[in-house]
């Protein structure tokens, strides 16, 4: 039987931006990310995954994971864990790492990739993973795309998908993506939740939290339960994640807008946002954005500094395949996939 491998990208840099100062956003500790990977491995192992191929993760993530792995005594020692392999790669400590790690995982034919990070980390992974199913776990603070979930449970679900032990379809969701084209360069970038034009001229501290600087945004879905631009869009016209269309918003300061909505724009920050116009964006449609001297923000982070002569269009496209954890576990229960073990049993607990 072929070895089943699952990739893990745990971004050590998520959760430390300036919103801790300006909005009181939470801190997601790297030791907890390491602990999450350990719990994830327990779930993956229980589902029969043989190997975890992980991006090198400094800043305390690896140390925490090693402490947990080294501390497995007693009942934990009896639990089957996948083998852990950390990719041997040059580390830049920026988004190039996630991109390179995902490419290496694809070459190694991993059956799924589990991502621990915020919208930004998922954005980078999604741009490089092709149709490898993602399990999207939130460790950032302002996340609309990944879910806040117990890693053990997510591990079981990702493992069941990776080992192909369930029959039928409907276990994966096709997400949407926004492809950004700057001056004709289609490979420029992409986003999973939103692309926004802000008058903030510099990328600076990156986080987008001054709503009144945003003139325009395109969102893939508009969820009333989200934080940020997706919530702004939802207050005007909710768009379910499963819907094929998206939304294009024109925004203005509240005193100059016909509609003013009050939404959580960042963790700890509920603010008024003025909406001038909201239009449906159909699949494949390219929306030209009005150029300004400012920045283009992708999934809540300022990424590109633009001048008035830059031409930007955003196209709503098909995005990554994401594991539907609830659907997988419900199917597993119906098919009794977790009753007994398909693998040689570890010693009885």
């Amino acid at each position, binding site marked *: 039987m072929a070895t089943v491998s699952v990739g893990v990208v745990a971004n050590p840099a998520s959760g430390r931006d300036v919103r801790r100062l300006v909005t009181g956003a939470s801190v997601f500790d790297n030791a907890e990310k390491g602990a999450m990977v350990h719990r994830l491995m327990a779930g993956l192992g229980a589902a029969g995954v043989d190997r975890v191929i992980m991006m090198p993760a400094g800043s305390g993530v690896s140390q925490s994971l090693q402490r947990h792995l080294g501390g497995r005594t007693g009942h934990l020692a009896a639990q089957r864990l996948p083998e852990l392999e950390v990719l041997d790669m040059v580390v830049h400590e920026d988004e190039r790492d996630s991109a390179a790690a995902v490419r290496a995982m694809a070459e190694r034919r991993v059956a799924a990739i589990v991502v621990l990070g915020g919208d930004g980390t998922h954005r980078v992974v999604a741009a490089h993973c092709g149709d490898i199913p993602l399990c999207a776990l939130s460790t950032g603070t302002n996340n609309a795309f990944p879910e806040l979930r117990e890693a053990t449970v997510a591990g079981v679900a990702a493992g069941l998908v990776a080992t192909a032990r369930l029959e039928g379809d409907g276990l994966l969701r096709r997400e949407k993506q926004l492809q950004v084209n700057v001056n004709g360069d289609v490979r420029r970038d992409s986003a999973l939740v939103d692309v926004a034009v802000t008058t903030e001229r510099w990328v600076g501290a990156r986080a987008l939290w001054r709503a009144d600087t945003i003139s325009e945004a395109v969102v893939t879905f508009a969820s009333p339960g989200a934080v940020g631009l997706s919530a702004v869009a939802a207050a005007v016209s909710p768009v379910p994640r499963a819907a094929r269309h998206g939304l294009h918003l024109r925004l203005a300061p509240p005193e100059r807008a016909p509609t003013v909505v009050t939404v959580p724009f960042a963790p700890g920050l509920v603010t008024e946002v003025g909406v001038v116009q909201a239009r449906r964006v159909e699949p494949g449609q390219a929306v030209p954005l009005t150029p300004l001297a400012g920045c283009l923000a992708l999934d809540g982070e300022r990424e590109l*500094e633009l001048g008035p002569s830059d031409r930007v269009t955003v196209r709503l496209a098909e995005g990554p395949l994401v594991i539907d954890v609830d659907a997988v576990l419900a199917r597993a229960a119906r098919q009794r996939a977790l009753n007994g073990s398909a693998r040689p049993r570890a010693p009885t607990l």
Partner: protein
Amino acid sequence: MTTTAPPDQASKQQLLEWYRTMRTIREFEERLHKEFATGEIPGFVHLYAGEEAIATGVITHLRLDDYIASTHRGHGHAIAKGCDVRAMMAEIYGKRDGLCHGKGGSMHIADVDKGMLGANGIVGGGPPMICGVGLSAKIRGTDQVGVSFTGDGGSNQGTFLESLNLAAVWHLPCVYVVENNGYAEATSVKYHAGAGTDIVKRADGFGLPGVVVDGHDFFAVYEAAGEAIARARGGGGPSLLECRVNRYYGHFEGDQQTYRAPGEVEELRRTRDCLDLFARQVTSAGLVDAEELRRVDEEVARLIDDAVADAKAAPEPDPSDLLTDVYVKY
């Protein structure tokens, strides 16, 4: 929450001033690197080249009556806080015209009138002083702010950790800036920081907010530091700002840097240069011409030339100066 204006509206004059400060620090350090090799400069010199965006981006938010406490790598902080560049150069040469009459040298350069409490030979020596600044401002009811600078190595010192605790307990108007340049002297941060390379984690243990920014990007430092300082000034309490950065030279002048990879510094100079990045940003935004930046470069080069020439020509302290300025009379 208190916030500052984003730098979007900065005037051309302001952009050029920031550039001038960064260029002055760079030129000062590059020149010292050359001059130190001749053997004319007494004592130790630790150069700040590569880290200019931090001193400039943080200190531009401070007033004359705010205080900073610096490190052994203190020239950049002193220049950004407004210390006289010629007097600094003379000080480093150990001359009577120096900022501290030649008695401090590079590692004890100070100008209290400018709110610069001194470079500091003691690693982790600055943060407790800044607690004092904060306590003083709080008791006197002023809205002054204190900012300490510490390296990644210094962040392991008890003094640094005790200061974070004291500042949190007393809710002091202080900002603790960590310049994480990747090395504590010759030891990589990968090996010296127990809980991983995130120095910002130190803040969590004391209940302070902590943020990380790219220390090569002036605007990133400017924005985050502006928020931290405005928060402190407005009574919001202390915070920690970790700036990820690189130094272009060794720990000290003469350091053989055998702990660095071949080509590491050349690569950093090529890809991680705060002055290049700033120039690219402001010129491509159409706010400043390349020619205007070049003029600043020339003026700064002349200033440093003059400062070095003056320092070399300046008189040595006299034996009769030995006991002056040694003790402060209260």
